[in-house]
């Protein structure tokens, strides 16, 4: 097929990773000036480089290839819409960015262009104490929001392990997963509605029906889910109305030790299936995770050798309900051969789960020497019954990589309940990556491993991601396989909402909607 690149503002944004020419950049900045104040348009190298990556390890020698041309920091929906309109007219890529903590490269400007950083849109617009909702700018963090809500005895329970630094808009863009989602639901359940700027610059209100504060409507298509989890490829959420709960009176977070993985797995299932109303989640740590923690984690170094797997469970609610539910869960744990690990670990480790940036950023060479490493996490959604088989297969993939090179270190696996009934688990394997040594060869090996990891999840009837998304090299190749005919629908939706491919282009193989397969470009 012959492809003619568009020369100017006709057709789609060019499929290029080259920076804008000086003329185009000057024209862009000139067009932005009437819309934004000078300090809302950032051109300095540091401002742009800092918004060129996310925490997921990548070949750092290629950092310069993904630096945006301009960063803008709008303060209102109108400003976002105006910026997007300009970008659409000029066929310049736009990438929404919130906390920048996403692990699938969603906020990385693969085609450069304009990064729309929404952090200045962090206001609380309305607190409705009667209907129990809050309306916020999407640049606010859940932690800052909850500090304000606590004064009213209220709580917004979206609790990722990046809780202090991921923001409401990024949660919408990824359709995030929450540690305590088994009690309160995940981002899609907690966000009632939002204002959304489409790739053409039109503004749409997305909710159940047209409602702002409606949690269930049957009117029209359910568009809310479509405009969540799209990784910024369908537009930018600017103002969101969220569901609120009473701030919990009590928390209980027991950790139990097991001398084998099978009992721990069975126990996790039994805890989740018990139907305890205050049950907010359970986490299963496998043998590799325990071995990893024994190296560096103060809580686990002193554990006796027969501790081979762990389970933690957490409950939130009124004190009397938590106590009653807690007794039931303790009895279940005992029936499965659990040993309570004590109050110190139980409380300390649970409190640390809300902020996994505290992960020790070092690993080991095969001969045991400490090396600096970045943390990566591959996640999938897997049914309870499939968790052991998926875990075994994933560790084999990692073992194979490690046999070849010290760049990768297996940091073990967690399986977290996604729902109160225990149907499926966010299953994650944590991998230490020696980022400074991640040359093109090691990166290619890693991309293949990621693809294999995704394929295992699919082969066991799961989905390739429970929380991060599947945009990165490796797993993205399998998205058409996972979604089947649904992937064609994605292409149709993308083309009709973003006729010029300006909104976060190059993600999710969506270039195919414009007659171009860029899967292997720039690899």
């Amino acid at each position: 097929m012959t492809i003619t690149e568009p020369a100017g503002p006709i057709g789609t944004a060019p499929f290029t990773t080259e920076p804008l020419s000086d003329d185009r950049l000057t024209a862009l900045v000139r067009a932005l000036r009437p819309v934004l104040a000078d300090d809302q348009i950032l051109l300095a190298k540091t401002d742009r480089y800092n918004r060129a990556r996310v925490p997921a390890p990548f070949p750092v020698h290629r950092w310069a290839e993904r630096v945006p041309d301009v960063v803008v920091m709008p303060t209102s929906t109108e400003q976002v819409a105006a910026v997007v309109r300009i970008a659409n007219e000029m066929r310049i890529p736009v990438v929404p960015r919130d906390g920048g903590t996403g692990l699938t490269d969603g906020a990385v400007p693969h085609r450069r262009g304009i990064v729309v950083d929404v952090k200045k849109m962090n206001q609380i617009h309305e607190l409705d104490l009667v209907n129990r909702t809050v309306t916020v700018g999407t640049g606010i963090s859940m932690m800052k929001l909850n500090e304000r809500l606590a004064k009213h005895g209220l709580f917004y329970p979206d609790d990722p392990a990046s809780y202090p630094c991921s923001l409401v808009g990024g949660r919408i863009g990824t359709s995030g997963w929450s540690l305590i989602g088994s009690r309160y639901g995940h981002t899609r359940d907690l966000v009632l509605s939002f204002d959304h700027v489409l790739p053409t610059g039109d503004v749409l209100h997305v909710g159940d029906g047209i409602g702002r504060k409606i949690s269930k409507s049957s009117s029209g298509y359910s568009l809310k889910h479509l405009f969540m989890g799209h990784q910024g490829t369908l537009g930018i959420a600017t103002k969101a109305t969220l569901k609120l709960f009473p701030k919990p009176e009590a928390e209980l977070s027991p950790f139990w030790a097991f001398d084998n993985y099978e009992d721990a797995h069975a126990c996790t299932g039994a805890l989740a299936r018990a139907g305890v109303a205050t049950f907010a989640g359970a986490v299963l740590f496998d043998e590799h995770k325990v071995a990893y923690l024994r190296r560096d984690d103060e809580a686990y170094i002193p554990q006796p050798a027969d501790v081979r797997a762990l389970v933690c469970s957490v409950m939130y609610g009124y004190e009397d309900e938590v106590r009653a539910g807690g007794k039931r869960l303790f009895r279940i744990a005992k029936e499965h051969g659990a040993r309570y690990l004590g109050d110190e670990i139980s409380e300390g480790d649970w409190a640390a789960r809300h902020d996994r940036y505290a992960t020790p950023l070092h690993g080991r060479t095969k001969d045991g020497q400490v090396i600096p490493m970045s943390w990566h996490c591959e996640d999938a959604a897997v049914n309870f019954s499939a968790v052991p088989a998926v875990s075994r297969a994933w560790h084999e993939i990692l073992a194979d990589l490690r046999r070849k090179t010290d760049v990768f270190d297996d940091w073990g696996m967690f399986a977290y309940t996604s729902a109160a009934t225990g149907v499926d688990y966010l299953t994650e394997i944590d991998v230490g990556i020696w980022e400074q040594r991640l040359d093109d060869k090691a990166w290619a090996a890693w991309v293949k491993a990621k693809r294999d990891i995704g394929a295992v999840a699919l082969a066991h009837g799961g989905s390739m991601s429970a929380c991060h998304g599947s945009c990165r090299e490796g797993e993205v190749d399998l998205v058409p396989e996972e979604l089947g005919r649904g992937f064609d629908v994605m292409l149709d939706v993308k083309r009709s909402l973003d006729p010029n491919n300006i909104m976060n282009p190059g993600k999710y193989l969506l270039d195919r909607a414009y007659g171009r397969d860029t899967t292997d470009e720039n690899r």
Partner: protein
Amino acid sequence: MRTDDQPTGPSASAPYRFAEQHTPPAPVRVSEVAQTTFEHVYEVDPRLMEVHVLQQVFPNWDTLRIMRSRADHLAWMHTHFAEKVITGSEILAEIERESTPVPPPL
């Protein structure tokens, strides 16, 4: 360490003496790969930090500051998420009490 406890050791306002600050308590081996100095302060076995990452020397006050601020952080997180923490040992004690047969009245 319980989050409401603090690690032992000199307080932040104790007088600063260089030699003292650079003499941590004698290390005690706790596993194949780790040792402790102050109570609850774990360190990687220095023999494993000789090639790619070298161990840094911290004055004692800084080691303790890091430990204390971690404890503060965890305590803060608890109160941020719930008014009160119920301990597992309380629940276990309740279960124990309930399962102990009540002696028949004399």
